[in-house]
């Protein structure tokens, strides 16, 4: 008989756990998510860094220290197996004052302790060789070559696609309302779409992990959101080759300057603590953005004019009581595993968290895990028109003429890319058509014009493929429909 596992939350942690557990013959894995698509919570908006594992103090935050570096090493393999967009460009933690070197020495020491032997301190001359346009105030840096960047939502999508291909069942737009516990054992998950039976419930609910835990009667921790805001600039603006950090302060890793994987200069985040009830507050603020601008300027003085900003956005990190990741089987409720408070470096740690959970199931819950004879570790990336040479375009056009038709001018996304994205949305169970779902799979609408040319075309394709009116297509799920009806809806006097 199979052990039924319900994972709550299809973010980077939940998805990674689903993938790792999909490897076992004797598990039936259900991935439950309240959003219409995967990766739309904490995973959606962050700095997209695969951290170097040097800055988490193993005495204060043992889980973070252990899982970050292990996660980094695992990502090197996962990005290849799953064809996740990535770059391994390394990081420089920049010193601008003599006393910064004390902190860098500390980080170097801690890095060695955590298992990152490849770091070293570089002097001013080598630093400017590595990064010529850095602030002239810089006097040296800690160089961490293993730092990289990935597309966080593309990563979640890739992992979920692979998990589904290996038998994981997804339940999207399925909000959890309760955890059924009998005689100290979990029995399943109550949702707005009905009851999902489970022997093991894994709480990977991000910002809501405290609320889910309380549903199981566990209330020793609370999650509060910490907001970070970002600027993204137009393409063609010179950015750094490596990820640039200021020397950290006791409170923060500081505002990062980086060229993100699509080649756009990005700066952020600041850190603003919000009360626990503001878990949906993703509004950008002028004060926050101003902090980011000022912070970034200290490392990268030649910021472009504000008119070159193509997007500002905010993300929320789930800050747990105590500050460390909470990853454990709860003793008072058998079968309930918390994966909570996965704040930075959560993206980096995700694959390691997943193996940690598998180990908890085996070791703490005593369930023997039987490997599948045929488990497929691979997933193919969606066709990206912008990566094709003209000769390759002629190959894909033979398969489907839609691949030759560019619909997003700025980022060169073809109609074929979009149709493939829609097919893949349906494959993992996306029920509500949204522009964001297409955006995260294809990069359409994220360029210089921010979608004013291609969004209407994408809306039309989504409407056709999902068999709905174009006004029913959403920007990002229910409540964000692009229109209120056909163009005569108000004229006819019908209130939509």
């Amino acid at each position, binding site marked *: 008989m199979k052990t039924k596992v319900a994972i709550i939350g299809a973010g980077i942690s939940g998805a990674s756990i689903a993938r790792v557990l999909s490897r076992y013959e004797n598990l039936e894995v259900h991935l439950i998510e309240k959003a219409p698509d995967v990766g739309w919570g904490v995973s959606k908006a962050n700095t997209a860094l695969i951290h170097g594992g040097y800055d988490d103090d193993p005495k204060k935050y043992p889980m973070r220290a252990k899982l970050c570096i292990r996660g980094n090493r695992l990502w090197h393999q996962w990005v290849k197996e799953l064809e996740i967009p990535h770059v391994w460009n390394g990081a420089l933690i920049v010193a601008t004052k003599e006393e910064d070197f004390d902190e860098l020495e500390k980080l170097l020491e801690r890095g060695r302790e955590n298992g990152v032997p490849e770091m070293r301190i570089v002097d001013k001359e080598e630093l400017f060789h590595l990064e010529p346009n850095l602030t002239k105030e810089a006097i040296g840096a800690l160089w961490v070559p293993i730092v990289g960047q990935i597309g966080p939502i593309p990563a979640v999508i890739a992992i979920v696609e692979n998990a589904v291909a290996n038998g994981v069942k997804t339940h999207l737009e399925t909000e959890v309302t309760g955890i059924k516990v009998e005689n100290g054992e979990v029995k399943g998950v109550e949702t707005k779409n009905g009851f999902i039976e489970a022997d093991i419930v894994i709480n990977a609910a991000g910002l809501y992990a405290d609320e889910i835990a309380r549903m199981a009667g566990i209330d020793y921790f609370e999650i509060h959101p910490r907001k970070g805001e970002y600027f993204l600039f137009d393409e063609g603006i010179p950015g750094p080759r490596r990820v640039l950090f200021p020397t950290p302060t006791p409170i923060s890793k500081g505002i990062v300057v980086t060229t993100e994987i699509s080649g756009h200069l990005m700066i952020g985040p600041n850190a603003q603590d919000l009360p626990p009830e503001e878990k949906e507050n993703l509004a950008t603020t002028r004060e926050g953005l101003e902090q980011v601008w000022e912070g970034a300027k200290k490392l990268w003085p030649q910021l472009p004019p504000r*008119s070159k900003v193509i997007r500002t956005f905010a993300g929320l990190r789930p800050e747990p009581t105590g500050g460390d990741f909470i990853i454990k089987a709860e003793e008072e409720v058998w079968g309930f595993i918390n994966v909570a408070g996965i704040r930075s470096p959560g993206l980096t740690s995700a694959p390691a968290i997943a193996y940690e959970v598998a180990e908890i199931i085996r070791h703490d819950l005593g369930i023997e895990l039987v490997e599948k004879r045929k488990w497929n570790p691979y997933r193919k990336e969606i066709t990206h028109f912008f990566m094709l040479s003209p000769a390759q375009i002629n190959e894909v056009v033979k398969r489907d003429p839609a691949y030759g038709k560019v619909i997003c001018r700025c980022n060169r996304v073809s109609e074929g890319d979009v149709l493939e994205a829609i097919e893949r949305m349906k494959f993992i169970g996306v029920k509500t058509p949204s522009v964001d779902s297409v955006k995260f799979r294809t990069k359409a609408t994220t360029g210089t*014009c921010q979608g004013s040319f291609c969004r*209407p075309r994408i809306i039309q394709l989504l409407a056709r493929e999902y068999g709905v009116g174009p006004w029913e297509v959403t920007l990002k799920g229910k409540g964000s429909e692009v229109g209120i009806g056909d163009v005569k809806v108000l004229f006819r006097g019908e209130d939509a």
Partner: protein
Amino acid sequence: MNDLPMLNYDVVVIGGGPAGMAAAVRAKELGLKVLLLDDNDYLGGILPQCIHPGFGLHYFKEELTGPEFAARFAKRLVELGVDYRTAARVLEIKNYSDLEKVVVFSSPSGAYQVWTKTIIYAAGARERHAFEIGIVGDRGAGIYTAGEAQTLMDIYGVMLGKEIVIVGSGDVGLIMARRFALEGAKVKAVIELMPYPGGLARNIMILRDFDIPLYLSHKVVEVRGKERVERVKIVKVDENLREIPGTEFWIEADTLIISAGLVPSVKLLTAIGVEIDPTTGGPVVNDLFETSVPGIFAAGNSVIINDLVDYVAEQGELAAEGAKLFIDNEGIPTRRWIKLEKGENVRLLVPHYLSGERDVWIYARVSKPMENVEVRFPEIGKKLRLPVVKPAEMLRMKLRKEEIAKARDGITMEVVPL
């Protein structure tokens, strides 16, 4: 490259809007072998979504809608047998030599390389969006650029919302205000940063006709509403466009339309090093609309943002004449180029260089509105009186070749009060 099907033309026109269609038609009339490429499924550029009248008064001497104006040109194009491809996106332009260019494009039938003697670049413009003008807050549904709203309403038949706030009193914003009002929506405000409205006089009338409040010297700074726009924060600005503290107020609305101006689309040009005028955002051009790369011409809104389609078409035709002259002479023949410079109260100006060998239309915009002015070209002693000038309305005036030839070095254009 060698594995791509190869096509050969005299002129490749990039863009099937009014500038591109006019250029293609004229070039064909002049006996050139022309290929027109456009990435939309239909010809006309943005015209098919401009279902309001006001097009073609100068060109056709009658008032047409956008689709009608486009249809006339498209018909002419087909009658003349111009080769054209829709759903065809240019990926790259290569300046192989001064006399040969390569255009690589992709289409549903595949990618092609086109060898051509000249290129007329008429790719139009894009709209500035909410992030570019510094609006913060939430990013739910209901935020559209005016042109995107127009596409969704007039091509795809979608009603976007009920209570509308429009940022910018330019023509597109005002026309969309009327469009929303005609379909039964409540247009709650048009917010204009400048102390004067940005559109043509005939479009500013829309505000009175539909009883729409206009807030001059105001800006939208924030939008709230998680899934969908719920309210918009507005603040007053002083004469230096600085926000005045304490003047903030909110307007409830479900839709925010951004009509904050257009930016010429020049990415393919900058990729090959065509010189760009930072004030227009388009290429530096001579009096035949040739760019700084010989044999590459440009026309329409990719050169300078026009307010009338007639000027756009006129520039397309001129560029086609330039291409013909270029092909016949292996270059544009001229003894010297006279620089046309911006003087007092001239914000934008094309063309940048004049040969003095032909009459030239000058297209210019002033920085600020003025009444009872004189437009002067002091070096050549030319003067013209105008009752009023506005930044919204393009000045178009002819310099005759004899006048231009009088200049020793440059010619300055200035607009000064009388």
